[in-house]
């Protein structure tokens, strides 16, 4: 699953950093019909998690109320240099993940 992550490459210890995530996914609501009238099955990313050096720092339960190609922006405190790992899963159990390193000084 294509996704874009934006976090600062470096930060000072204790600094609150902005995390931006954009994932390519139709977030199919389950309420739409195709051109011959059949209901298109629901398939949304229902869970999203961000771990910072293995510790979960943010989690989200999502539904069809979140727009297609979901955008999330949240914050976390820069503690130490390490990896931010992003994982998510949709209704069809397809998983996605991304990872970005951050260098923390001080």
């Amino acid at each position, binding site marked *: 699953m294509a996704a874009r992550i934006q976090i600062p490459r470096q930060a000072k210890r204790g600094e609150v950093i902005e995390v931006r995530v954009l994932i390519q996914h139709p977030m199919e609501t389950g309420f739409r019909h195709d051109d011959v009238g059949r209901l298109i099955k629901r398939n949304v990313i229902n869970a999203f998690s961000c771990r910072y050096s293995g510790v979960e720092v943010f989690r989200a339960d999502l*539904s069809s*109320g979140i*727009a297609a190609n979901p955008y999330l922006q949240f*914050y976390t405190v820069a503690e130490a240099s390490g990896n931010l790992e992003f994982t998510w899963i949709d209704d069809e159990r397809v998983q996605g993940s991304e990872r970005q390193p951050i260098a923390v000084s001080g």
Partner: protein
Amino acid sequence: MKRREFLAGLAGTLASPGAALAQADPLESIIRVLTNGAPVRKGKVTLELPQLADNGNSVPIRITVDSPMTATDHVKSIHLYSDRNPVPNMASFYLGPRAGKAEINSRVRLAGSQRVTAVAQLSDGTFWSDTAPIVVTLSACLDES
């Protein structure tokens, strides 16, 4: 039963359903699943939505909670509710002291003009909320492409 009591009782019965309808919050029972009946206070939470949506398929939303986000005083979770979408629970976001700042930005789907509600649960167990109205119109032209 005396006639006077009967008429008073009748007036009471006629008055209360109207009053109940005027005050009933369609989301009340859904939010109670989260709060277990605990009071939800207005304040601390700011829900920002445009007044008029460009298109109901994707509307920008920002929720901020006034909180120091320390180990002893922080936002545990933020929950978004729609009073018109087919699925009223839009999303739940779980924060904690490592968040540093209680702010979430996202883009949501809104199935028509409505009021969106954000409820935050703090580390002390209290619940706070904000509600914002939004007008969502249909697209001018039918698009079957």
